[in-house]
């Protein structure tokens, strides 16, 4: 039913020359016959068309496109030669091949068979938009089709075929009319775009401005009916469903034109009505457009990415640098730019824990222009400090994806520093017992940090217990003890023996000394006598009681003898003799009787001690 002209780009050395047209038309229909060649500068000679009425033609139109694939530039040229024909008799007719000569070579096109049917084909409401149109974009170079055969058609144009998730895509619905006035335009479900978040970019109150466009050599006036910014919400293929447009067209009935409706024909064919208009209700659909939505790159995604796609900037400020406790502070963040501004998550602020915080107030200032959405979003965070101090709020990070450069960008505000001073009520409110003490608030729980610094490593599975060293250490003290005990006991024994000998000899030595003193007595040598007596007595004490001589004195002898368990009476007598002896040594006068006394005393005291020890 419909013939679509297929555009191909081919390398320049491969020339193709094809003819195309609908293969079925109804009687009286106007249709388009197109010859397409992919080279310029050809000499076209058309076919002989006898079975159709040639309304116009051949009209030439040229389109060129350049492509760079893998660094290789290729050029494709399409030259169309278009006839507008009208069928005026029934039957099947053949259009002979046309020929074109390019660079001395003549190429022949294919022949076409066209069947002309009697009666009406259904009203041609479906616009003839080539399949490539949706993708071709708003630059229409390279698109063509047999739209020229249509008087009124609707086109959907998109700004980008393969956007990222969240990237702005602008869809424009344009109506084209070939100088046919239309009114009562109505598009169904205009603002419904499943799979997208959309914002209308057209001003409803504004009148549609029209402009003139040439399509395939035919002049059309076009007007933008609707323009919307779409933000894909998921990756993959998303189809924008065709929009259905209905309108009323005022079709001018020409005298020469055969109407499709025999009833109206007889009426309007009257010369009186020959240049009348009639209102025709037209229905048409735009092309379905399929977008291939790319997911955002995952591996380079910043940590705090909140889904912003476009191009943005961020500014932040606090309204006060110095404030008092319980005064409010406002932190303002402004994110401005182009893109899906309305879909940005609210940035989080890390307030110090002592702050009472509130939900941010969000205001937006968004401008919609035919070029897209731009503007700013303002977040105002209110917080109330509950304690004084110097506070710093970490810089707020905001990241977005720039589809232009295919990269993520991370923006950051500066850190916010401010001072909270003690409020007046704090100073006044110092009353004992009513202080508002607070327990420490725990913000989270985690294991403690690792131990850093030098480790003192030891060998694994090595135990001192049960090892040879262990038993050595245990055996060492008893061994040492035994050694020392042996030494001590031996020394002690030796000393004991020595004392015993002295003890035994003590009396004998004393007697010997006393004998000597007796001789001094006879010789009347008092000095020598006293010295000898003294030596005899002291020496006896020393030997008998095993006390070194140096330890003995008049003062200490008493204590020493008491400690040895000697009878106090004997001690008194002993010290008495010693005293007398000392006294007599230095006293002049009659000494012989005194010396005799002392001598006898000494002998008796030694015998007495001897007796006391023995019993």
């Amino acid at each position, binding site marked *: 039913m419909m013939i679509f002209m297929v555009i191909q780009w081919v390398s320049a050395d491969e020339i193709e020359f094809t003819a195309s047209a609908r293969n079925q038309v109804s009687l009286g229909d106007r249709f388009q016959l197109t010859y397409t060649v992919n080279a310029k500068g050809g000499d076209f000679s058309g076919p002989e068309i006898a079975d159709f009425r040639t309304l116009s033609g051949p009209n030439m139109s040229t389109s060129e496109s350049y492509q760079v694939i893998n660094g290789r530039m290729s050029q494709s040229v399409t030259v169309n030669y278009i006839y507008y024909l009208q069928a005026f008799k029934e039957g099947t007719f053949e259009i002979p091949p046309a020929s074109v000569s390019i660079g001395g070579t003549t190429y022949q096109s294919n022949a076409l068979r066209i069947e002309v049917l009697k009666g009406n084909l259904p009203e041609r409401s479906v616009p003839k938009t080539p399949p490539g149109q949706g993708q071709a974009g708003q630059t229409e170079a390279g698109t063509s089709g047999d739209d020229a055969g249509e008087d009124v058609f609707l086109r959907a144009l998109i700004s980008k075929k393969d956007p990222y998730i969240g990237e702005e895509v602008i869809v424009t619905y344009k109506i084209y009319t070939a100088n046919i006035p239309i009114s009562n335009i109505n598009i169904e479900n205009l603002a419904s775009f499943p799979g997208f978040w959309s914002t209308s970019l057209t001003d409803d109150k504004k009148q549609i401005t029209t402009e003139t466009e040439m399509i395939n050599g035919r002049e059309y006036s076009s007007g933008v009916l609707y323009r919307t910014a779409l933000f894909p919400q998921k990756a993959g293929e998303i189809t924008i469903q065709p929009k259905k447009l209905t309108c009323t067209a005022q079709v001018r009935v020409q005298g020469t034109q055969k109407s499709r409706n025999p009833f109206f024909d007889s009426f309007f064919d009257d010369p009186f009505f020959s240049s009348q208009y009639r209102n025709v209700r037209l229905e048409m659909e735009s092309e379905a457009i399929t977008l291939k939505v790319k997911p955002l790159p995952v591996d380079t995604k910043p940590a705090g990415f909140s889904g912003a796609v476009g191009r943005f900037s961020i500014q932040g400020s606090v309204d006060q640098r110095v404030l008092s406790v319980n005064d409010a502070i406002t932190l303002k963040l402004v994110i401005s730019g182009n893109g899906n501004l309305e879909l940005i998550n609210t940035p989080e602020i890390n307030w110090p824990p002592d702050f009472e915080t509130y939900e941010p107030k969000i205001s937006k200032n968004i401008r919609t222009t035919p070029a897209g959405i731009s503007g700013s979003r303002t977040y105002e965070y209110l917080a109330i400090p509950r304690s004084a101090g110097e506070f710093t709020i970490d810089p707020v990070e905001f990241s977005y994806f720039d589809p232009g450069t295919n990269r993520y960008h991370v923006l950051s505000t500066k850190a916010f520093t401010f001072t909270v001073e003690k409020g007046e009520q704090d100073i006044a409110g110092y009353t004992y017992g009513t202080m508002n003490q607070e327990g420490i608030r725990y913000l989270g729980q985690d294991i403690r940090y*690792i131990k850093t610094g030098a480790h003192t490593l*030891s060998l694994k599975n090595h135990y001192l217990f049960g090892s040879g060293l262990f038993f050595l250490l245990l055996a060492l003290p008893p061994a*040492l003890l035994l050694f020392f*005990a042996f030494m001590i006991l031996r020394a002690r024994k030796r000393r004991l023996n020595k004392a015993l000998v002295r003890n035994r000899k003590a009396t004998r030595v004393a007697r010997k000394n006393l004998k000597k003193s007796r001789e001094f007595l006879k010789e009347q040598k008092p000095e020598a006598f006293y010295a000898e007596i003294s030596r005899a007595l002291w020496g006896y004490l020393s030997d008998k009681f095993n006390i070194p001589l140096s330890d003995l004195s008049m003062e200490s002898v008493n204590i020493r003898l008491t400690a040895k368990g000697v009878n106090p009476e004997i001690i008194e007598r002993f010290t008495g003799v010693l005293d007398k002896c000392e006294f007599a040594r230095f006293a002049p006068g009659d000494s012989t009787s005194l010396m005799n006394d002392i001598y006898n005393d000494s002998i008796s005291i030694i015998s007495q001690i001897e007796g006391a020890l023995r019993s």
Partner: protein
Amino acid sequence: MKKLLIILVILPGLLMAGSGPANLIAEADSAYNKGLFNEAAARYEKVIETGWESPALYYNLGNTYFKLNDLPSAILYYEKARVLAPRDKDIQFNLAIANSMIIDKIEAVPEIFYVKWWKQLKNSFNLHTWTIAGIVLFSLLVIVAGIFFLSVRVSLRKISFWSGIVLLLLAAASFSITYSKYRVEANQLEAIVFHPTITVKSSPGQAGKDLFVIHEGTKVYILDEHNDWCNIRIANGSAGWLPAGSIKRI
């Protein structure tokens, strides 16, 4: 023996100064800091593989496994660290956190006060400290005994006699603690369950009757071993058999 002592005292110092374990530990510490826990764990493990140990090393490895959400391994290494440093507050704290996150909540059997005191005393010092304490107490006992036997003075003999009896008791206590700790540590009689869920059987082998179910991270005491099966007891006194592969010994 003296050579071994020299190795024990000097070698660690030498190795700390050179490359080897010290470098690996420093690398692991910095990897931990950066959040590269897998790398940190691999480095710490390598140091342990070469035959060294220290409470801090086990503790750091426990932390790393904790961050990797591997609770049984974290608990295993915290326990190993605690064996070496029983009074370290950080180890106790982190072990308590890790133990609070495992599935099994086992109420320990209440014990009579003197058993509790005995255990507390036992667990206040590590095996090495107890061994040295025993040696020191024994040496003191020998000295005091020497004083008792060699002294002539009655008062000195009295003092040495009573202090000798006290020292004898203390030395006996520390040797008994040392031996019981040595038995548990040298034979690795404590273990951590590593299977996510494991049924404790009434006899070694799958044919045994199911007694109760325990989960990963639970600490068990090994009573006996038989053909790759372990007779274990948990803190509440329940006992049964587990396949040896489901637990890792501390």
